[in-house]
């Protein structure tokens, strides 16, 4: 076992998170602020290379692999943890921040994992940590936390099935690009895509994330989907199937974000949209594209966290979550408003991180001469600015005041936002800060006249369209039926709408079917419940009958076969 493993930042983060669970007050805040810095320093000390030699199952694991890509993601995660801790200093829940450290630590471990098994172990730990973060959101978050856990454990078992099949089939233990041949690789892809929020498992993001506490969602937005993006970059660069998958996610995210009324759900849909954008970028697969995806993962974490912090501050002040209940807060919370505007601009305006990263991916699509992909990405770039940027900022902070009781966000929250804004600005003004960390050598100049001008054209045009169509946008505010709705509430009303459309006979049949479905849970309880056929105390006579039956079956089968 290599000594470097003692300096594994993920282990320190996770252990620190557990210790934090037993602390309160100042020591806890201090620990939460210092841990990410310590972890970043530790990571910086470890030279690139593979460290391991930990025996587990029948394998020797390379627990720690430091290379440019992994280090970049790990550093970004640490930044997210640090800024999130600053922002969450006032969080009353004793569970949330420690859980976030376990979660973030596991994410760091996953992106620094040198082999599939280590990756999977951290992957599952992330699922548990993030469930706890959602859980800390309070009583309303419990069912969502359970649904979230189920989706991720399901994704986990698919992922695990893929990994075991890959290893049993003689595949290499280290994480290398896979050819997408055979069931094993498809299972791995499916497992990762479930965590990325791809169809048909995308609804967990808007379902669970917005139920976390005001600070919880800031943590949640950073890790799970980005880790999935990272694994896809590692294992499936250039897999063409990822382009349609990513674009589908992006389109879904856009449309739903346009309609959604709850501010943080809008941002959750925007996460799906942007992750879809990145996945499409991975599908392009050129060095430029992969650089762009890695860089954009960073930029996205920064601006999405900034927007979520601003909305989180609003939730703390007003207790309201919906666009229709909010408005005119600019006067009461000017600083927060300023940061929110900056967050929206940081998606793609020049001088911010978003500008220097998004254009990389677009450029890669252009260089690969993928006309339709490039056009779609243009739409995404414009649409997300409209749906998640302009819409949220304008509906929440401007417009008529609703006489909400609100004050400016407290200093801890303002500091969190300030740090993020500065990060985005610094990287946007001096791109080499980020470009030098990218996995591949880069030769791209973001600040050319045409780039700046065309980007400004795009932003201004989108703003104009937004103001022109704002009436429509307001009218359609609401929530749409999503995939999760089908498995959560196959509501009787919806059934009626369906049923009245068809002729009488079919209606009868469908009604009977629907009644059957409605009765299913009841009958399940009858059979499986404590007094159900299968669960009650049986008279010993019937137990003996089973014995006799089984014996007969064995004898008959043995003699006949």
């Amino acid at each position, binding site marked *: 076992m290599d000594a470097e493993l003692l300096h594994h930042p993920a282990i320190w983060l996770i252990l620190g998170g557990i210790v934090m669970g037993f602390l309160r007050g100042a020591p806890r805040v201090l620990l939460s602020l210092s841990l990410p810095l310590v972890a970043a320093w530790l990571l910086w000390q470890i030279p690139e290379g593979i460290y391991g030699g930990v025996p587990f199952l029948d394998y020797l694991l390379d627990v720690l692999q430091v290379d440019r890509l992994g280090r970049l993601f790990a550093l970004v995660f640490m930044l997210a943890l640090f800024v999130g801790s600053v922002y969450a200093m006032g969080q009353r829940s004793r569970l949330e921040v420690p859980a976030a450290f376990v979660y973030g630590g596991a994410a760091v471990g996953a992106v620094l994992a040198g082999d599939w098994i280590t990756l999977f172990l951290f992957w599952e730990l992330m699922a548990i940590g993030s469930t706890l973060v959602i859980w800390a959101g309070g009583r309303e978050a419990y069912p969502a936390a359970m649904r979230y856990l189920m989706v991720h*454990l399901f994704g986990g*078992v698919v992922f695990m099935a893929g990994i*075991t099949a890959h290893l049993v089939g003689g595949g290499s233990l280290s994480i290398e690009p896979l050819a997408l041949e055979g069931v094993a690789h498809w299972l791995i892809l499916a497992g990762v895509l479930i965590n990325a929020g791809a169809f048909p498992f995308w609804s967990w993001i808007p379902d669970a994330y917005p139920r976390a506490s005001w600070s919880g969602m800031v943590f949640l937005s950073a890790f799970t989907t980005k880790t999935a993006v990272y694994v896809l970059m590692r294992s499936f660069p250039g897999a063409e199937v990822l382009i349609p998958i990513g674009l589908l996610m992006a389109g879904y995210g856009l449309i739903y974000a346009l309609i959604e009324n709850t501010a943080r759900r809008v941002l959750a849909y925007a996460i799906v949209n942007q992750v879809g954008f990145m996945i499409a970028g991975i599908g392009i697969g050129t060095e430029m594209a992969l650089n762009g995806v890695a860089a954009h993962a960073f930029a996205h974490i920064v601006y999405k966290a900034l927007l979520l912090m601003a909305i989180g501050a609003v939730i703390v002040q007003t207790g309201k979550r919906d666009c229709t209940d909010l408005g005119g807060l600019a006067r009461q919370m000017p600083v927060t408003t300023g940061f929110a505007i900056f967050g929206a601009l940081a998606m793609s305006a020049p001088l911010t991180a978003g500008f220097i990263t998004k254009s990389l991916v677009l450029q890669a699509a252009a260089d690969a001469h993928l006309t339709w992909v490039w056009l779609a990405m243009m739409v995404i770039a414009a649409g997300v600015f409209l749906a998640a940027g302009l819409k949220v900022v304008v509906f929440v902070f401007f417009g008529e005041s609703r006489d909400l009781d609100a004050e400016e966000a407290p200093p801890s929250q303002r500091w969190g936002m300030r740090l993020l804004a500065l990060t985005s600005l610094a990287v946007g003004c001096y791109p080499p800060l980020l470009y030098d960390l990218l996995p591949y050598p880069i030769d791209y100049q973001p600040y050319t006249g045409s780039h700046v001008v065309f980007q400004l054209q795009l932003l201004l045009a989108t703003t104009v369209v937004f103001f022109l169509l704002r009436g429509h946008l307001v009218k359609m505010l609401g929530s749409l039926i999503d995939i999760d709705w089908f498995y959560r509430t196959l509501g009787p009303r919806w059934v009626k709408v369906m049923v009245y459309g068809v002729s009488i006979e079919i209606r009868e049949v469908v009604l009977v079917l629907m009644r059957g479905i409605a009765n299913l849970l009841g009958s399940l309880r009858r059979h499986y419940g404590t007094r159900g056929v*299968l669960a009650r105390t049986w008279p010993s006579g019937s*137990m003996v009958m089973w014995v006799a039956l089984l014996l007969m079956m064995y004898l008959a089968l043995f003699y006949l076969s």
Partner: protein
Amino acid sequence: MLTQHFPALLVVVPLMAAPLIVFARRSLASWLIALLATAITFGIAASLLAQTLSEGTLVYAMGSWEAPLGIEYRIDAAGAFVAVIVAAMGLIVMPYSRVGIAAEVRSEEHYLYYALMMLCLAGLLGILVTGDAFNVFVFLEVSSLATYVLIAMGRDRRALVAAYQYLLMGTIGATLYVVGVGLLYLETGTLNLADMATRLVDVGDSRGVLAALAFITVGISLKIALFPLHLWLPNAYAYAPSPVSAFLAATATKVSIYVLMRYFFTIFGATEVFDARATGAILLGLSLAAMFIPAVVAIFQHDMKRLLAYSSVSQIGYITLGISLDSVEGLMASAMHLFNHALTKGGLFLVLGGVVLRCGGAGFDRLAGLGHTMPVAAFAMVVGGLSLIGVPGTAGFISKWYLVSAAMHEGQWWLVGAVLASSLLAVIYVWRFVEVAYFRAPPADHPAPGEAPLSMQLPALAMIAACVYFGIDATWSSEVSMRVAEVLMYNPGVGQ
């Protein structure tokens, strides 16, 4: 000098401790004797495992009568492995029992409890060391009779009915086993398991052998509580005193599984019986049913003990699934899960025993708010629950991994899906506990309990900790399981 008698001493020590305890009568004295006896037994079992691992099969002629005439004790890595599980569980339950039975067993019966535990231990270990088919039956009955009484000691009157029903079922199971052994005796003319395996090769595929296989399989399946022959188990586990539930959950069914493996692979494995007939297929079907149906039943329980009992039936399905794959990998996964599940379920029942002591019951109405009133116990239960699910970092994950790999080796993709889907059901029933313990307010009449006494908490936490330890460092357990599988598969008792 003494070591050569270890195979016999493994049984004799607890067997002799029982009458000593009865003579001692005093609760404390009998406890001390039982503790000493279990400690010695565990030492013997551990040394036997070490010996069998390094030297192979150990043969001990009872009373120096050589095999064809006398009864021979024969222990190999497989038997010693399960013996260590059983003896270790005994060693953990004993210190726990001192306080653990105080609330559940009448004080004048305490010495009987210890004596019966010793008999049960002796019987279970006897099954593992003996090399004689009929002897297996005798030891099976010794342990079972002790078990019936132990269950009947539960303070609920339903314990009596549970014990009675278990007695009926257990006796039928054992009798069916004897019928099978009788038929084998008629076919081969020997009761020595090793000889039987050799001679069966010549006898081949006769009807008598097939009937014997059927009787033995059904008889042992009853003792294993393989679905749908599990009906006695939930009540037996639910109403027995907590230490007894823990001990039985970790050992009794496991020993029977060992017997089934022994017969399937060592005795019948030499013939074509297992391959040619539908044995594997039937076992596979029953295992799948066991993995799903009782798991769904567990979801709807509102008593933690019953929930765990049904979960046991479901987990036994995993073990028999590995057996039904009929491969070394599958057998290894089974052996692995046998060990890991003993750890997990034993630990969970031990923790629950402390909870029952404090809360006065294991019903969900009593357990509400446990996360606040007994945080350590609730947390331990959650960790054990994670192991039931098979979350990485717990022992359950290791078994799940090997089971999935074994199914992959056989190219059985759909089985992989079944195993993983079943583990999602476990998520739901474990979540039921989490929901009750953390989201519900404690009942109004709750006596504000506080944690269980240390003598109960430490053994319980040790088991749960072991559960995590063997989930992280599985080197030992996987190596030994592999040996066990190889011994069972390739070394059919014949020669050495």
